[in-house]
């Protein structure tokens, strides 16, 4: 017998930014072992430096920190900070990687992050990037992971004094770092990108003029944890600026010396967000101007954000590439010189702050790392990936995610991270479960019958709460409430430090009830439940008063009202928590089968990945064959052969023993709960009814090609859509040789009143088809009439190539669209050339409309209704969190892939399908599902068996049992409480929402009013 080479059970994730953390968490939740390395001294990457993120303008730390601390407490993740990869041997399944950890001079096990070392020896602070020269603490932000300091020994002249000042004795100047090797089965490369440094471009004044900053520096100035503590001031004089300008495409689109040829994809949104946040703070007190080439807001709902910036916030947009930023001798302000299409003369305008929107680039360090790993790089030093698998590099077993793959924003990074996790998980062995390794939480202490002892912990949440109300006064107020034993102010209650303090307080003060005054229970209840449980308290004895989302954020205009309301909410929570009782969660075995709705590229990829991992997959397709929209596409812009790819995908799907394909499937009913769904469908020509039981559902229903009845589409044979044109060019290439003039019109049926969003794919389709026409007929003259060319990422290089080859790009405005009429043997297109300032008429042999995609309104509305899934205003499925959970739908157990989410390219759909598989695995890896404790409970002594609950239950769960009273199975109860409110005898109570708790809230609310 041949000896099998041993396959390692570990995945190595290089880079602990958002992408690396997401990949590590997905793997860990699917019970795979992960080594997460980062060269920095805390994980989090670029995102931790941002103030807020688009499009929700949420505070980043609030959304990010739960992920970070999750990252550090997962038992499957080994976290190695200040560590770099030195070399690699072996191949897929069995890599040996040599690494080196730099000395931190602090023993992580001993450091409590008390801050004494910083107070006494601030010079030993490690510098944070950007303007953050004098960070308030040497941890970058309060939720830093690991929660420990880092010493810069070179800057320290009194090492002994430093050692003595540490009460924990954690400082170790003899730390030598270490060199070591690890083995792993696969590698995820997510080191992120670095930002373009504009210092060498003297005409921008960066580095010489203090008021010229990069967009990341501006972000740091806005950030509450930044150098100015969130005060927007000019670095030169400390005054609030009155006029701020953003200049786009610095270091992108090949414009400056050393710039990448690609578009950095995220900077337009980044600038919009900064401008909006600035406007939000100062309203009419500040003017914001964005100088841009093309506004590239091609993501889901991003166009609406752009419109809001323009129409609601009054951000000014100037289409121009400024010539220079100068400051006149002795002048206080900066002068930008620029020119516009409509004027031939140069314009000069004064601003008091200028923000350079610097693009992403691959750092030399990452390039060297790629060299060590042996992966191929493209001309811009980004890894070459498979045209149909955006995370697969040229080396089997090594995957790439995030900005290191191509410039992108956070949601796309999250998708790729999950996709990489899916691929990497398939290459490693299943780790042997070591149950005994897990430390069980301490036994719960008894609380029944004991007098309530409440602890109240109030978060100031940075500026979010503390900036509007006096959080300390709230804590003081709460301490006066009956049965409150302790009341304390916490900075960020969700930081690890605060959680630990809360646990200590529970033990020290023998607390048996806890109230958190902070953010929403929707996002943080689970976290605080885990916190109190770890201290030995039943997890249902904690209640959150939502004083941020529902008080300080919405009443920031009146701190007095916000304070009064916060007090009400806290008093209500205390009154309610006193009456809470310890509860036990219900759990049931999970169904590990999967239902995938939609048999296109996304659906098939998700099905194949999950089937490969041993899950039975039901693939339900509405039509009679697999393939979806991609079956009509011939090649990608990179010349990937889509037809062959789709055929192969269908063959593999049909041949897979774990996949059952159901064509002509019409979903008609749906019931159950996450992990135990039942979906009914009518199938086949006869429309037979069948029901499928499954644990998770993947929505991959796709979108429809748009065909708006505009510009003679459908009336004249010489007018087509880009989709028709690419098929025509593949099937009848000889047609193109007869064309002298071809006109393409962009944004037809997109970015208008009916469909305000951008369809994302059409600009690259136009370029792809234009290049194809020129390949067939180099003499053809092609006009592309556009509003903004949105060739994001590496597509920019194809755009530049098309211009070099003579394709003529003419901009039109929404107010002045091109006009079209049928002429002799062709189409007459007239439009205004903004550069020439006059009207042109082109007699086109062919007119091609870039019509993009629209959501399948009929199909989606039906499914959304059956599955209870929310949708966006334009009919796409709405994900749980647009930034951090772009794949999970708001209902647990539902995931979305492909164009059902928003318009996408094929490789993006594949990426999302892989990501779905990884996310679904996190749920399916466990054998049981936790149903929580919220269920209705009947008091048999009061029940009169009147049958009202039996009749009112939406799910027909209650029944009258042999003893003659109503019985409700807690495992089947959905916990809505309808029977509770209907019961005339008040014999039923809904656990967690008992009547006495609701009444207590009312009681407490009116305590003040009537007092």
């Amino acid at each position, binding site marked *: 017998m041949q000896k099998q080479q041993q396959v390692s059970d570990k995945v190595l994730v290089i880079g602990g930014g958002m992408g690396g953390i997401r990949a590590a968490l997905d793997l860990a939740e699917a019970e795979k072992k992960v080594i997460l390395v980062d060269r920095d001294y805390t994980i989090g990457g670029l995102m931790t430096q941002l103030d807020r993120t688009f499009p*929700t*303008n*949420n505070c980043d730390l609030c959304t990010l920190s739960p992920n970070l601390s999750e990252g550090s407490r997962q038992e499957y993740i080994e976290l190695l900070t200040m560590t770099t990869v030195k070399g690699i041997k072996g191949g897929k399944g069995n890599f040996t990687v040599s690494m080196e950890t730099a000395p931190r001079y602090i023993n992580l096990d001993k450091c409590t992050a008390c801050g004494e070392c910083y107070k006494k020896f601030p010079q030993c602070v490690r510098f944070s990037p950007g303007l953050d020269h004098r960070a308030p603490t040497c941890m970058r932000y309060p939720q830093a992971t690991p929660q420990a300091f880092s010493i810069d020994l070179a800057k320290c002249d009194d090492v002994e004094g430093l050692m003595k000042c540490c009460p924990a004795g954690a400082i170790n100047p003899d730390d030598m770092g270490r060199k070591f090797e690890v083995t792993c089965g696969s590698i995820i490369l997510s080191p992120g990108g670095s930002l373009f440094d504009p210092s060498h471009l003297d005409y921008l004044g960066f580095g010489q003029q203090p008021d010229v900053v990069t967009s990341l520096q501006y972000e740091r100035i806005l950030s509450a944890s930044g150098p100015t503590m969130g005060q927007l001031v000019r670095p030169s004089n400390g005054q609030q600026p009155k006029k701020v300008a953003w200049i786009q495409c610095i270091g992108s689109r090949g414009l400056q010396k050393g710039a990448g040829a690609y578009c950095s994809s995220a900077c337009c949104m980044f600038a919009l967000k900064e401008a909006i946040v600035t406007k*939000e703070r100062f309203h009419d007190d500040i003017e914001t101007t964005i100088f841009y080439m093309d506004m590239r807001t091609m993501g889901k709902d991003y166009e609406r954000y752009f419109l809001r910036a323009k129409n609601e916030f009054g951000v000014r947009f100037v289409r121009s590439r400024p010539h220079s930023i100068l400051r006149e001798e002795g002048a206080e302000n900066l002068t930008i010189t620029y020119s516009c299409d409509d004027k031939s003369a140069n314009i000069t305008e004064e601003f008091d702050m200028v923000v350079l929107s610097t693009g992403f680039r691959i750092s030399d360090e990452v390039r060297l790392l790629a060299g060590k790993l042996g992966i191929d790089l493209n001309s811009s030093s980004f890894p070459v990936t498979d045209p149909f698998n955006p995370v697969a590099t040229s080396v089997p077993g090594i995957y790439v995610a995030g900005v290191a793959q191509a410039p992108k924003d956070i949601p796309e990074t999250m998708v790729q991270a999950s996709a990489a996790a899916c691929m990497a998980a398939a290459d490693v062995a299943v780790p042997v479960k070591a149950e005994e390794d897990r430390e069980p939480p301490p036994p719960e202490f008894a609380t029944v019958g004991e007098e309530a002892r409440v602890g109240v912990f109030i978060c100031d949440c940075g500026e979010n709460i503390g900036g509007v109300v006096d959080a300390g006064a709230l804590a003081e107020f709460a301490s006066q409430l009956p049965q409150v034993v302790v009341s304390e102010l916490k900075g960020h209650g969700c930081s690890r430090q605060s959680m630990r303090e809360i646990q200590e307080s529970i033990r020290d003060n023998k607390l048996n009830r806890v109230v958190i005054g902070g953010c*929403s*229970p*929707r996002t943080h209840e689970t976290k605080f439940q885990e916190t109190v449980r770890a201290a030995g308290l039943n997890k249902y004895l904690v209640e959150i008063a*939502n004083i*941020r*989302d*529902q*008080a300080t*954020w*919405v*009443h*920031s*205009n*009146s701190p007095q*009202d*916000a304070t*009064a*309301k916060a007090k*009400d*909410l806290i008093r*209500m929570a205390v009154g309610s928590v006193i009456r809470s009782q310890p509860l036990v969660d219900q759990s049931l075995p999970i169904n590990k089968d999967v239902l995938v709705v939609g048999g296109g590229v996304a659906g098939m990829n998700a099905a194949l990945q999950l089937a490969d991992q041993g899950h039975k997959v039901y693939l339900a397709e509405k039509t009679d064959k697999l393939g979806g929209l991609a079956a009509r596409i011939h090649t990608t812009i990179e010349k990937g052969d889509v037809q062959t790819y789709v055929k192969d995908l269908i063959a593999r799907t049909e041949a897979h023993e774990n996949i059952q394909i159901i064509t002509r499937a019409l979903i008609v009913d749906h019931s159950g709960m996450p992990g135990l769904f039942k979906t009914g469908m009518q199938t086949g020509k006869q429309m037979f009814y069948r029901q499928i039981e499954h644990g998770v559902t993947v929505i991959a229903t796709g979108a429809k090609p748009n065909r708006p009845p505009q510009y003679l589409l459908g009336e004249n044979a010489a007018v087509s859509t880009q989709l028709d044109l690419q098929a025509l060019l593949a099937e009848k290439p000889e047609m193109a040789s007869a064309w002298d003039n071809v006109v393409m019109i962009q944004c037809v049926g997109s970015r208008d009143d009916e469909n305000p969003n951008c369809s994302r794919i059409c600009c690259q389709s136009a370029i792809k088809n234009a290049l194809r026409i020129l390949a067939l007929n180099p003499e053809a003259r092609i006009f592309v009439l556009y509003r903004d060319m949105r060739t994001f990422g590496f597509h920019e290089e194809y755009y530049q190539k098309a211009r070099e080859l003579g394709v003529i790009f003419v901009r039109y405005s929404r107010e002045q669209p091109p006009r079209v009429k049928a002429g002799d043997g062709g189409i007459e297109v007239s439009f205004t050339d903004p550069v020439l300032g006059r009207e042109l008429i082109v007699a086109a042999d062919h007119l091609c409309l870039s019509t993009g995609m629209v959501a399948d309104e009929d199909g989606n509305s039906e499914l959304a*209704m059956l599955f*209870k899934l*929310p949708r*966006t205003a334009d009919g796409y499925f*709405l994900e749980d969190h647009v930034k951090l959970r772009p794949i999970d739908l*708001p209902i647990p157990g539902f995931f979305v892939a492909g164009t059902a989410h928003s318009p996408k390219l094929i490789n993006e759909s594949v990426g999302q399908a892989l990501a779905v598989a990884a996310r679904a695995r996190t749920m399916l890896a466990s054998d049981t599902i936790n149903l929580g404790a*919220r269920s209705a409970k009947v008091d048999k002594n009061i029940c009169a068996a009147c049958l009202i609950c039996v009749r*009112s239950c*939406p*799910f027909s769960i209650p029944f009258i049992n042999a003893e003659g009273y109503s019985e409700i199975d807690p495992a089947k109860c*959905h*916990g*809505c*409480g*309808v029977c*509770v*409110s*209907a019961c005339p005898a*008040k014999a039923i109570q*809904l656990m967690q*929402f008992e*009547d006495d708790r*609701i*009444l207590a*809230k*009312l*009681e407490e*609310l*009116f305590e003040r*009013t*009537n007092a």
Partner: protein
Amino acid sequence: MENFEPVIVAFCCHYCAYTAADMAGSQRLTYPANVKIIRVPCSGKVDALHLVKAFEKGADGVYVAGCLEGDCHFKNGNVRAARRVESVRKYLEEIGLEGERLEMVTMSAGMGYRFAQVATEMTEKIRKMGPSPIHLALAGGASEARQAANI
């Protein structure tokens, strides 16, 4: 009662209205602080007793906010809630309170704007109506209350 600031209780279902309220927060929309939210799993959970109790304790206005029709997480809890609100309104009229002080509204989880708008409109409406007779009585103005209630 000069400078009358009504107290309004909003029973919000966890899945839609409560989420919309959070959404209003993350979009930094503003609405009057008079509205205090009590979270329930489903609008169908809101007991007639809770509605009446709220008025008994001195609420000037009460509303139940659930999911849009057809969107209820529990099939039809919102429809039941609407029916219950309707019947409690009649009851309020019977005991001398204006039925308009109680409302049923629906919204989806994404409608932060609508949440803020409903809260503003409700506050405006109740402010115009003046304090509830019970509120007045509790505040000590018993005779005024009797007058208002027409007793």
